[in-house]
C-alpha cells in the first residue's frame, strides 16, 4: 500500500490557518498600528522616564505573556503525564517555543529600556532580570531536549518532566536572586499606586490585549504545526516499515494498522 499525498493547492500559504486564526490575524493587523499610535502619539510622556516609557508598552505585556506561556507549558506537561494525550504534549511544546521567543524579547526590550533609564544594559542585582534570564535558558534546554531524535512517547514524557521542573525552579531562582543582592531597580508595580494618567493606563491595557491576541494566534498556528510534525513523523515510521516489508515481500495488515494508529496517541 502506498501512501498518497494529496497535492497541495498552488499558493496555499496559510495551511495552518482557519476562520479563528484569520479573525485573530485581522485583529492584530488593526491592533498593532493602533497600539503604536497610542504608544507614540496619544500617550503622554512620563515625568521621570520621559519618552523611554513608550518602550514599556511592549516590554511589560511581552514579559507577562512569557510567564503565561511557561505557565501553559507547565499545565500542558502535568496534563500530559496525567492523561498521556498528544494534544497536551503538543500544547506544552508550542507554548514553550513561544515563551522562549517572548522571554528573549523581554530581555532585549528591557535591556534597551534600561540603557536610557538606569544607564546600564544589564543589572545583575535585579531579581526580575536574572530570573527571566535563567528561565529563558531553562526553556532553551527544554526545546533542545525536544529536538533530540527519540521515540515520541519517551521524548514527550522526558520533556514533560523537564517542563515541570523548570517551572518549579522559577520561584526558587527568584527567591535566591532576591536574597542575593536584595536590590531591585524595577519600580514597584506602578499600576497599583493610581498615579497614572488615563491614557497611559489605556495604552498599557491595549498592549496587553494585543500581546494576548498575538500569543493566541501564534499558539494556534504553532500547535497545528506541531500536530502536523508528529503526523509527519508517524507517517515516516509507517512508510519505513512498509518499505522494509515490501522488500521482504511480506504484505501484512500491521503496516497499515501501524499507520492508522499513528504510532503516537
Amino acid at each position, binding site marked *: 500500500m502506498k501512501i498518497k499525498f494529496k497535492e497541495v493547492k498552488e499558493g496555499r500559504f496559510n495551511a495552518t490557518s482557519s476562520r479563528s486564526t484569520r479573525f485573530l490575524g485581522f485583529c492584530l493587523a488593526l491592533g498593532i498600528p493602533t497600539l503604536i499610535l497610542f504608544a507614540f502619539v496619544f500617550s503622554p510622556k512620563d515625568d521621570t522616564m520621559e519618552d523611554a516609557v513608550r518602550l514599556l508598552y511592549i516590554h511589560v505585556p511581552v514579559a507577562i505573556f512569557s510567564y503565561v506561556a511557561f505557565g501553559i507549558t507547565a499545565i500542558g506537561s502535568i496534563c500530559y*503525564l496525567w492523561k498521556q494525550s498528544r494534544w497536551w504534549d503538543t500544547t506544552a511544546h508550542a507554548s514553550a517555543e513561544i515563551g522562549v521567543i517572548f522571554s528573549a524579547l523581554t530581555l532585549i526590550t528591557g535591556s534597551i529600556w534600561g540603557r536610557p533609564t538606569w544607564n546600564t544594559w544589564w543589572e545583575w542585582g535585579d531579581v526580575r532580570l536574572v530570573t527571566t534570564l535563567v528561565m529563558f535558558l531553562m526553556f532553551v534546554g527544554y526545546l533542545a531536549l525536544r529536538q533530540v531524535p527519540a521515540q515520541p512517547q519517551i521524548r514527550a514524557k522526558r520533556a514533560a518532566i523537564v517542563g515541570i521542573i523548570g517551572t518549579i*525552579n522559577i520561584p526558587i531562582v527568584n*527567591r535566591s536572586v532576591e536574597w542575593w543582592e536584595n536590590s531591585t531597580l524595577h519600580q514597584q508595580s506602578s499600576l497599583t499606586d493610581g498615579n497614572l494618567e488615563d491614557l497611559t493606563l489605556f495604552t498599557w491595557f491595549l498592549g496587553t490585549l494585543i500581546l494576548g491576541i498575538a500569543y493566541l494566534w501564534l499558539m494556534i498556528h504553532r500547535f497545528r504545526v506541531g500536530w502536523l510534525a508528529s503526523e509527519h513523523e508517524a507517517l515516516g515510521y509507517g512508510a519505513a516499515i512498509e518499505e522494509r516489508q515490501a522488500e521482504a515481500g511480506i504484505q501484512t495488515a500491521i503496516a497499515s494498522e501501524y499507520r492508522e494508529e499513528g504510532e503516537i496517541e
Partner: protein
Amino acid sequence: MELRDAWSIARKDLRIEFRSRILTNQIAPYTLLIVVLFGFALDADTQTLRDTGPGLFWVAVLLIALLAVQRAVKIEDDDAAKERMLLTPVHPSSVFLGKAIALFVQLFALETLLFFVMLALFDLSVEDPLLICFSAVLATIGIASSGTLYGVITAGVGVRETLLPILLLPVLAPIAIGATRTFGDAFGRVDADGWAWFGLLSVFAVIYTVLGMFAYGQLVEDA
C-alpha cells in the same frame, strides 16, 4: 522502597568508580587544573582570588558535577547494566537514592580535595567551619539528586554530552548563588547571612530528592 537497596546500589556504583580509577586519575587532576586556570585567568592577584574564591569553588564543582553525572549515566548504559538492574526487585526510588548517594560521595570527596587546594593556593581563611561543612553537604545533596534526575532524562540520547549541561546548569543556578553566598560568609568575604542561604539550599535539596524519587521510575524504564 528500602534504604538497604539504595545502599547496595550506591555501593555498586562506588565500587565500579573505585575500580575504574577515573575519579582519581582523571577527574581529580581536572579539578586541580581548573583551580590553576582560575589563577592564570585572574592574573595571580591573591586579593582578587580571595574575593572570588567562594564563587570559583562552586563553578569548579558544577563543572566536575557534569563529568560525574555523565559517568554515572554511562555505567548504566554499558553492558545493558540498567536492564539487569530493572529486572531485580528493587524499587526505582531506591535506585534513584542509591545513585544519588554514590554521586554525592564522589562529589563530596572531590570538593574536599578542591577545598584544601583552594585554601592553600588562594590563601583563604575559614571563619565559620560549621557553615562550610553543612552548606557543602546540602548543596552537594542538591547537585547529586538533580544531577541523577537529569542524567536519566538525557540517558540513551545520542547527544547526551552536549544536552546535559544546557539542561542541568540553569537548574543549578540557585545552588550556584546560594552556596557561593554561604561560602562567602563563612570565609568572611561578604556580609551575608549564610544561615539564611543554608535554608534555601535545604529547600532545593529536599525538592529535588523528592522529585527525583517520584520521577525516576517513570523515566528509567524507557530510557
